[in-house]
């Protein structure tokens, strides 16, 4: 009986012309040469370096989130292409095709679930990647540009998720997208409902929202546009940016930390590639199990006339939706997202602290870490409030409270500078109308300005400017505890007097202390302590971002405590702050 010589068969196969034509290199002997040849000679692996610093291998150091984001992107491409075989992007068919995927197509439900959950997971992993890179100072010179590309990739990840949200054409989809795209209509100058939109001649059928929707409402054209953006246009751009992102990681080298004396690099094959495969396998398994256990949501078919109550954005945008309660759409929907993106991209150029490069160094980077984590915390706390604590009519319901309890109607709101809310704004157009019609009195329901807006503009501008300049102008470091204590004492005194007069309740007083204290500590004491010596341009950009963040907290406080709708409103140009 002939024996089966496995080693000989293996050798014959590897030496065959067919094998040799496909795989470069000879018999694997696991020499350092083989290991490097495996990286250099393989088109899929050649973006890696041959050797890498051992610290770049540790999960605790990298969190593995960048790699996992890329794996999720690949998974989404695969499942997405599969779904495209059964999905037709038209108003009449889209919802039915999703139903077919759920109930009639073999593995359709699993594919849709995987696509949905992988998309949600990718949003989380991309944010976690950003947090880890920030905390270990991975964006510092010479990696500033790659951080900026990363911020763009984060934005595009959210945009991909948002465009995909519409495709099932159910109530969840159409209303999230209606709200999201109406924010585009509030863009200054370019949107028909935004500041200066009317001045620029914007109408419902020629502004930036019209191009996004391909019409005046979320309809057939919108579905097709979002389909093309979601499946072709945006993934292409993401792919191009990913190539750039990876190439710069390679060129700027892994791990920014200063070299230690006896540090020796290790082979990428197998040490790094092995970890990548483990991460990919773990991620795939995680998504698979999640998709088996839990179904993607699908509500009733889209009805452009009736809004579900309550109606919410996708969870990662619910924080912005929550801010929309306190702010005019042009601020919460356009200005703040824009500031967040630009501010994130500016971080490497304003944080020139040479310490904490490539290491988690809390002590050396107190200001940067505190401010960044404050922003991240605000983003997720707002998401929690919007997602878990908002019920019918978007009223506040604690998570344990039944939605069947009817909430009292919210109290009327008012504006500080400008006409009283609850009445029709007094506009320039109306003034012309009154003059031309020779009317002697204002129309019913119109109340003239309480405080004139010309007073509000310099007052708010002055307050903003003073908050920006003050920390730098005080040369000597203040005693933080003393100043904060004094400030809180003053607020408590004011609240106490107001409470004694019956103007402010205990809850409102607590809000004043909480928001006022937060804004004062993070917006004045910390900058005064840490960045007053920064050069003027960097100082001004940093403080601009800090003061804007604090202004969000203060505006929330104004609404919660005093029912102030807008601090300043100029109806003639649709500008509300």
């Amino acid at each position, binding site marked *: 009986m002939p024996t089966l010589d496995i080693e000989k068969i293996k050798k014959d196969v590897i030496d065959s012309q067919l094998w040799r034509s496909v795989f470069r290199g000879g018999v694997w002997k696991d020499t350092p040469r083989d290991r490097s040849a495996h990286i250099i000679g393989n088109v899929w692996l050649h973006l890696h370096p041959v050797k890498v610093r051992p610290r770049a291998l540790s999960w605790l150091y990298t969190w593995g989130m960048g790699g996992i984001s890329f794996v999720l992107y690949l998974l989404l491409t695969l499942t997405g292409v599969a779904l495209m075989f059964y999905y037709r992007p038209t108003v009449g068919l889209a919802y039915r095709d999703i139903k077919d995927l759920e109930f009639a197509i073999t593995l359709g439900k699993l594919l849709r679930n995987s696509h949905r959950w992988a998309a949600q997971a990718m949003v989380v992993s991309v944010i976690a990647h950003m947090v880890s890179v920030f905390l270990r100072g991975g964006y510092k010179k010479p990696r500033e540009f790659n951080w900026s590309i990363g911020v763009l990739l984060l934005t595009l990840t959210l945009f991909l998720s948002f465009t995909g949200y519409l495709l099932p054409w159910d109530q969840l989809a159409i209303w999230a997208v209606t709200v999201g795209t109406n924010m585009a209509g509030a863009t200054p100058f370019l949107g028909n409902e935004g500041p200066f939109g009317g001045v620029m001649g914007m109408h419902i059928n020629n502004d930036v929202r019209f191009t996004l929707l391909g*019409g005046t409402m979320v309809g057939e054209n919108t579905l097709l546009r979002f389909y093309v953006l979601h499946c072709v246009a945006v993934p292409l751009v993401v792919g191009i940016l990913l190539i750039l992102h990876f190439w710069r990681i390679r060129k700027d080298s892994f791990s920014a930390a200063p070299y230690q004396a006896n540090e020796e690099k290790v082979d990428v094959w197998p040490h790094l590639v092995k970890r990548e495969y483990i991460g990919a396998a773990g991620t795939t398994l995680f998504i698979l199990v999640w998709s088996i256990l839990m179904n993607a949501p699908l509500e009733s078919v889209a009805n452009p*006339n009736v*809004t579900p109550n309550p109606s919410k954005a996708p969870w990662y945008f619910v924080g912005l939706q929550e801010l929309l309660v306190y702010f005019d759409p042009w601020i919460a929907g356009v200005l703040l997202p824009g500031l967040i993106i630009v501010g994130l991209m500016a971080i490497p150029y304003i944080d020139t602290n040479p310490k904490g490069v490539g290491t988690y160094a809390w002590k050396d980077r107190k200001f940067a870490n505190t401010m960044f984590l404050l922003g991240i915390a605000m983003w997720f706390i707002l998401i929690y409030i919007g997602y878990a604590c908002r019920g019918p009519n*978007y009223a506040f319901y604690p998570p344990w409270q039944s939605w069947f309890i009817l909430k009292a*109607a919210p109290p009327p709101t008012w504006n500080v500078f400008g006409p009283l809310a609850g009445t029709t704004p007094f506009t320039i157009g109306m003034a012309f109308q009154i003059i031309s019609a020779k009317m002697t009195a204002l129309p019913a329901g119109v109340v003239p300005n309480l405080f004139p807006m010309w007073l509000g503009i310099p007052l708010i501008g002055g307050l903003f400017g003073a908050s920006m300049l003050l920390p730098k102008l005080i040369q000597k470091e203040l005693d933080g505890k003393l100043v904060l204590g004094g400030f809180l004492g003053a607020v408590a005194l004011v609240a106490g007097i107001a409470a004694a007069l019956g103007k402010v309740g205990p809850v409102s007083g607590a809000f004043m202390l909480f928001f006022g204290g937060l804004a004062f500590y993070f917006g004045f004491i910390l900058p005064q302590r840490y960045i007053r010596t920064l050069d003027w341009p960097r100082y001004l950009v940093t403080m601009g971002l800090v003061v804007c963040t604090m202004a969000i907290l203060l505006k929330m406080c104004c609404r919660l405590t005093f029912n102030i709708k807008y601090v300043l409103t100029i109806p003639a140009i649709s500008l509300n702050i």
Partner: protein
Amino acid sequence: MSEPANNPAPTPPAAAPAPAPAAKPAAAVSRGDFLWMGWSALAAFFAASAAAGARFMFPNVIYEPSQKFNAGSAKGYDIGVSTKWLNEQRLWIIRNPTGFYALWARCTHLGCTPNWWGDQNRFKCPCHGSNYTIEGDVIAGPAPRPLWRAKVELSPLGDLIVDKSVLEDMPGKRELKPFFVDYVSA
């Protein structure tokens, strides 16, 4: 300047097709000017392409439903807010003691459809909590302006004809024709 030697002496750049100086037949366009023109043409091409691409994204014809519809006989409405057309036409017909007006059911904040709460006598938006009176004026929440009223007319047969493409929200104007139909029931 590091121009090649065979170029003419620097001439005023404005005189590009200037008459040839003297001895040598100089190029009609200097190398520097030629490069400027070339790059400018390329930049102009890209700018025009971008503008054309942007224009391409604005559809010239849109196939959206007509905004005008017959809301049925005026006799069929009682005093108060009718939600009869909300599902199909996104509109409330409101009858008061002196006549009719029609409110477009689109929240002026971000375009959700508010709900009518008769017991509290107000419209409430489910998306960000804006509240409106029966007149359409904002009384709470973030909405920046009142609800829009649509053009409404009484046909010779006694039907209400509503046109949502003609809108008005200005007090003093919105209570007049064509945004209000005088109607006192017999």
